[in-house]
């Protein structure tokens, strides 16, 4: 049986990086751990696994990424208060069904993040890039914990609406 050539394997995994990492983030909720898991999965895929086609590779990645993520959390002694396997399946399946749309969504989101006012950007950076908890963010930005949750909720809504606006604009331009 023919197997996927290595360069195609790398190309496929890199093209799917955002989608795989977003799926992993749902478990680990830390962008650096999600990147570690993606790297582990990529190295495992390159280290001798054989895949018949892209669908086989992606399905293997989905399962392997989740297992690696859960093991990593256990190894680090983190309490795994994560969603049930059924819900995870549903979410990952829906992420996969988005297909190539994920790349466009991430690109739009990156522009939206860059366009945030400096104080908002510092806040989301502290929470999601520096990996500080909401309690730490609240202390750093001198606000109450509930206020920090509300501010983050608002920023997520702003980013979502910004991304949807950009995608709508791009779709309109394509249609013209």
């Amino acid at each position, binding site marked *: 049986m023919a197997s996927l050539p*290595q*360069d195609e394997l*790398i*190309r496929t995994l*890199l093209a799917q*990086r*955002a989608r795989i*990492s*977003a*799926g992993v*983030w*749902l478990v680990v*909720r830390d*962008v*650096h751990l*999600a*990147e570690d898991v*993606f*790297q582990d999965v*990529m*190295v495992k895929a*390159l*280290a001798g696994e054989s895949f018949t086609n892209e669908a086989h590779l992606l399905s293997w990645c989905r399962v392997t990424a989740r297992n690696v993520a859960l093991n990593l959390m256990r190894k680090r002694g*983190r*309490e795994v*208060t994560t*969603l*049930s396997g*059924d*819900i995870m399946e*549903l*979410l990952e399946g*829906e*992420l996969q069904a988005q297909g190539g749309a*994920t790349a466009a*969504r*991430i690109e739009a*989101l*990156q522009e*939206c*993040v*860059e366009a945030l006012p400096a104080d908002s950007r510092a806040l*989301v*950076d502290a929470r*999601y*890039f520096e990996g500080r*908890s*909401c309690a730490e963010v609240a202390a750093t930005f001198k606000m109450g914990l509930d206020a920090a*949750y*509300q501010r*983050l*909720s608002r920023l*997520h*809504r702003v*980013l*979502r609406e910004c*991304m949807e606006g950009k995608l709508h604009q791009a779709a309109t331009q394509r249609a013209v």
Partner: protein
Amino acid sequence: MTEAELDDLLVRYADGTLDTERLAQLEAELARSGIARARLRDLAEQAFAIGEVARCREARSPQRRVWSFLRLRPRGAGVPFSLVSRWRPCCSRSSPLCRRIQRELYWK
């Protein structure tokens, strides 16, 4: 569940501070509502995008560029590495992923 309540649960889930009861409440909502699942997927994509923007900013900082230049020169595994280096515009040879894949392929 209102949109504000859902957003609050999702932010707390991301923070890892949901107690068992509220986690069950969130799971029930996610099982029931496609909109709730879309919101959580949005959150995951946003966290990823925030991380990417911050990593790119770090990679572009002058201090980082000097270290990248001093530490890393490409060797071996030319073709796959050239694929990896096109991973994203700011993916320099200093990125951990590029380094690790290059090392794996080099020793293979």
